């Protein structure tokens, strides 16, 4: 029964998706219009594609500098998060019967319930007095703060990996480090994908941590740049939207090609 396509629901969902796509449509078209065209009609397509807005936005906001900053932060955070957080989780998962490791597990995981504002003011004092109010400091903070959630999902996953594989490797004379890197880490690939995707989305889109940690404008990330240039943007919407579009574009392009993996990665992370 009920095997044919439900066209009513299909139509309703398509209509609903207009609500999702409209803000993007506006962003793209406004970025391509002249101020004159914009004042005539907000919804119309641009009469001719005007790339001048993009060139101006690139120059004014120093776009490529911010893009580089965001990319450096995201790439380093993702690589080191995968390498270190999975290792910590491995040590915890294989020793959960011992008090120390059990304590570690609850120590990291309970941090998920600590709202960031409680440490916001002290961490800014601390990072600036230790000379960490820069990209390197920010990268370290993301890797460390990621532990709370990542240990939680890695440990759950590692527990489901049978110990027999490790035992075989140990009998062959492998050290604990070799067991981790050669046996366990490759087996973690599905979880690494999830953690990698979630970490990318977090580090790339985050605004609050760069806002409070970074003291040098030249180190600003893409979201932070949009904030710093608001006074200029509020008088020139075409310029603003060109800048917004360029800031959103890298993630949208990645999403178009990898949406299947991104959706399944995020789903796995959310349902543990």
């Amino acid at each position, binding site marked *: 029964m009920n*095997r*044919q396509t*439900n*066209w009513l*629901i*299909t139509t309703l*969902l*398509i209509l*609903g*998706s207009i*609500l*999702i796509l409209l*803000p993007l449509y*506006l*962003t793209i078209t*406004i970025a391509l219009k002249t101020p004159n065209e914009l004042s005539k009609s*907000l919804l119309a397509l641009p009469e001719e594609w005007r790339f001048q807005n993009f060139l101006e936005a690139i120059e004014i906001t120093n776009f490529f500098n911010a893009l580089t900053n965001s990319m450096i932060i995201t790439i380093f955070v993702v690589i080191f998060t995968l390498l*270190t957080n999975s290792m910590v989780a*491995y*040590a915890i998962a*294989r*020793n959960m019967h011992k008090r120390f*490791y059990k304590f*570690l597990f609850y*120590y*990291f995981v309970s*941090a998920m*319930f*600590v*709202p960031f*504002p*409680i*440490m*916001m*003011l002290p*961490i800014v004092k*601390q990072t600036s007095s230790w000379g960490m109010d820069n990209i390197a400091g920010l990268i*370290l903070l993301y890797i*460390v703060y990621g532990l*709370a959630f990542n240990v939680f999902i890695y440990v759950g996953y590692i527990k489901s990996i049978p110990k027999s594989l490790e035992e075989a490797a140990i009998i062959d004379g492998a*050290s*604990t*480090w070799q067991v*981790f890197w050669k046996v366990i880490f490759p087996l973690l690939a599905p979880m690494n994908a999830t953690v990698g995707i979630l970490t990318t*989305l977090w580090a790339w*889109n985050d*605004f609050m941590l760069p806002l*409070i940690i970074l003291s040098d404008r030249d180190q600003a990330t893409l*979201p932070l740049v949009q*904030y710093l240039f608001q006074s200029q*943007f509020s008088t020139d*919407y075409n310029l603003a939207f060109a800048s*917004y579009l360029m800031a*959103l574009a890298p*993630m*949208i392009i990645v999403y178009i090609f990898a949406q299947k993996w991104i*959706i399944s990665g*995020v*789903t796995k992370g*959310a349902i543990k």
Partner: protein
Amino acid sequence: MQKRQNAFILMTIPALALFFIFHTFPVLQGIFYSFTDWKGYGDWNFVGFKNYLNVFQDGRALSAYGFTFQFSIVSTILVNIFSLVVAMGLNAKIKFQKTLRAVYFMPNILGILIVGYIFNFIFAHFIPDIAESLGINALSKNILGDPDLAWVGIVIMAVWQAVAFNTILYLAGLVTISDDLYEAASIDGAGPWKKFWAITFPLIAPFFTINMVLAMKNFLMVFDHIIALTGGGPGQSTESISLLIYRGGFEGGEFAYQSANAVIYFIVIVIISVFQIRVLQKREVEM
């Protein structure tokens, strides 16, 4: 064996040390300074619970709590309704399922701040423009400029962005429900409404719990949305707790005072999360 234990210790100790230094230590410092009168610079004295008592008498703080709760509760409910509806739609026998799923999930990958700026324009120019050409006077002005309505604008943008994530979670729950159950129910003569309450909802109850708790917790921390849409205004009508702590702490020289506020905020979030999990899990069992 001892060597193995040493390796495990080496794997965890650096992480433990860094986590303590950059997470636990600042938290403890925040709690410590909440009992002082430190401005963020200069000398300080212990003042006991004075900061805490003052928070409860501070109109600005109370209105921030009021706004944050109002925003979070309304947004959490709306997000869960919309995402459940969308997820059920996506789970039905439809055409273009993959594409539609990709479109509905897309807001999740976009930075909240930038989406907020785009919505700022939509509220300030697009909606009034459309409303004017259609002759709807009620919508012809920017709702973000109205102290009584600005929060609605923030809810709309927050819901637009958050439905994506919650939809995917509900969808993960819905696909686990076997078609046989619905067929059996149909044979027994159950209508769609009955099927939803008797089959769908009880079976996705665990997902409902996660969604409610996660959404509520995220919304209680609202910050980026407000920076992009209203900056806390008009006046202080949409100032959230996070924004108040940020502003007061960094710009107002209220380091100690806002630390006390943050401790209260922390306790509130923990209580709400635990309460939600208890109540919702109890319902799961009963159903």
